[in-house]
């Protein structure tokens, strides 16, 4: 093989890789397009939440978790500092002191439209249901990459058990199948939580913002964050004051690893071709100069 053929092979390979990546569909590998499907969602109006923690209690009862003490005495301690969800608390209500006074915020899995956790799971143990629920299956291998990949740190791993599961809110999937509202929505005494199709609750959220100028920040958290989520939050103060991250961006998290995943077929097919081409191209030259190089070897070998 002469130099020209060699360059040709390389050139074809590079061109193939470039055009190939352009032709690949730009849709996320894990994501399900939001346009054609109606996800189920919950609108959380933080201006209405009174911090009674009934949602936490109902959630624990429905999911068979230890039921928390929600008496006033207990609340005093619980609200002292913001909490995170745990393996036994799928939802937590936190208290924030803001420029507009005390605000309570219930926090749980956001059920992203294109969840990072689902995209990162090697065995599809986390599944995005067609209705929007992100639920966990027991074929999980416990690699915990979902915890790394979740922008909200929601999947929680049971460290202290031999058979350890990933625990998180499942948007009351079982109750949904029976046609019942999520437990937290059903018990909320102020209707701070509202369930329905994502489109419907988004509409209601926008209506509240429009109907009450100055009382909400003109933004629904979860509408566009990380490509959208099923939990949508309304707030009277900027969201970074009530424990939300502002740096999330609107790109769905699976997109961040999609670049690599798209490259995998090309690496897998083009690398061997490239290596074989190089080998074939060099072989002749090596054979010709073989005696020479050997001579040189023996020369330097005397060190």
């Amino acid at each position: 093989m002469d130099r020209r053929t060699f360059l040709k092979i390389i050139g074809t390979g590079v061109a193939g890789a470039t055009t190939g990546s352009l032709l690949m569909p730009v849709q996320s590998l894990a994501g399900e397009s939001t346009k054609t499907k109606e996800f189920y969602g919950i609108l959380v109006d933080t201006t209405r939440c009174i911090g009674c923690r009934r949602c936490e209690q109902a959630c624990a009862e429905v999911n068979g978790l230890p039921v928390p003490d929600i008496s006033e005495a207990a609340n005093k301690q619980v609200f002292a500092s913001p909490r995170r969800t745990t393996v036994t608390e799928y939802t937590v209500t936190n208290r924030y002191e803001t420029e507009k006074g005390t605000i309570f915020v219930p926090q749980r899995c956001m059920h992203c439209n294109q969840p990072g956790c689902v995209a990162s799971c090697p065995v599809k143990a986390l599944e995005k249901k067609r209705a929007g629920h992100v639920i966990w299956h027991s074929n999980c291998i416990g690699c915990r990459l979902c915890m790394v990949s979740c922008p909200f740190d929601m999947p929680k791993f049971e460290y202290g058990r031999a058979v350890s599961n990933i625990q998180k809110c499942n948007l009351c999937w079982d109750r949904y199948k029976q046609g019942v509202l999520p437990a937290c929505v059903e018990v909320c005494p102020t209707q701070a939580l509202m369930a329905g199709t994502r489109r419907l609750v988004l509409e209601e959220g926008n209506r509240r913002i429009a109907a009450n100028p100055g009382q909400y920040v003109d933004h629904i958290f979860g509408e566009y964050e990380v490509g959208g989520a099923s939990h949508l939050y309304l707030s009277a103060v900027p969201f970074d004051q009530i424990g939300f991250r502002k740096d999330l961006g609107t790109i769905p998290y699976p997109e961040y690893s999609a670049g690599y995943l798209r490259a995998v077929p090309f690496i897998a097919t083009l690398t061997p071709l490239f290596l074989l081409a190089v080998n074939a191209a060099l072989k002749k030259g090596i054979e010709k100069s073989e005696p020479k190089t050997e001579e040189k070897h023996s020369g330097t070998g005397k060190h």
Partner: protein
Amino acid sequence: MAGEKLETVAVVEQPDKPAEIQIGRDFWPFFRKESKPKGNPATAFNLLSGVVVAFSILAIVYRLFAGLGSPVTNLSQLSPLGLWIGFYIMCGVAFAAGGAVVPFIVNVLGVKKYRPFLRVAVLNNLLTSFFCLVVIVLSFGRWWNIPNVFIGNGFGANSVMFIVLWVFLLTIVTAALQFRPAFAEWIGNTTSRKRAATVALGATVFGITLSVLQQTGVGALLTMAKGKIHPLWYSEMLPVLFFVSSIYAGISLLIMVDAISEKVFSYQIDEEYRNSRFDVMMGFAKICGGVMFGFFALSLIVAQFEGDFAFVNSEMGYWWLLEIIGFVAIPGLMFAHGAQKKNMLTIQTAAVIAMVGILMNRYNSVFLAYNWDLPFAERYFPSALEWIVTLAVVFVQIWAFRWIVNRMPVMRKSPQWAEKFDRD
């Protein structure tokens, strides 16, 4: 442990004629004969490592029954990866990259002087990949489900972890194929040796491809941790950065293995190895120097591109500067200097610093710069048992390496009868 003979063997006998042991029939009697220790097993290193391994076995048994939590690991909800994954999947894979670089030089580029290092590199790759799987079993919470990845109980083909795990499995198979000549020469099976030679190039090419996928894949595992890893370490270019840094990581390890082998396995090392050794080290140093300079430049370009220099003047920024200058630029210069002045000690020192730099870089991504803005009390630091188990796995790997080197022709010359198969 350098300078101490791990196992002392007076003479390495070189059978002139193949023993023609078939795998099925008479392998086990042969294996039983061979597995007896050669030399005195009661060395200081063996005792120390034995204690560590025994202790860690207890820890592992405890972990299987009581889970991953305290006291075995310090893992928490906010730092789920930890030391085991950080050391083996992140660093181990990088150090195994020599198993792709040397076959690339020898079998693809056809530079024969590196040939004596081929089997060492391949063996290292094989063992590291195998022990990576072992550590994966240890550190994954539901390890009994790991076969699900391979048998199709939910193919998560869109997952980076899926690709990484598959590549681990395939790497073991491929590295075993690449190592088959040594194995065949050990049992003295001509048919097997002949067949091994026929697939050599194919296995090499496949192995290199897998290694590229592996190095980039390990970086891609962290691409979705955007916002959790400090911006100086997080980048969407992580796969590329991990790939480039793995090249010098793998070679640095080979330089260290060479330095130690020269003392420990000197009775094994044949004339050809000894003769080409110096040249090869200089060649390695040139590659390392070049790649490290490239990595240094790439890191700076990525940092500039993503606007990360704004973070340099902070606690984490100083740590980053230490890593990028003290553990990439300086050893890179030392490699270049050593290669120019033909100074072995400089190169070996540089290799050690470069390896520490790789450890730092990977640990930073996994836990030091991961959720770095948490208050001190919530930060992760590996527990004592995590360190011990990590050390134990390294010791076991050294045992395995030593056992194989002492029996199969890895560093020593292939037997006479096998040489004719290598005319490719």
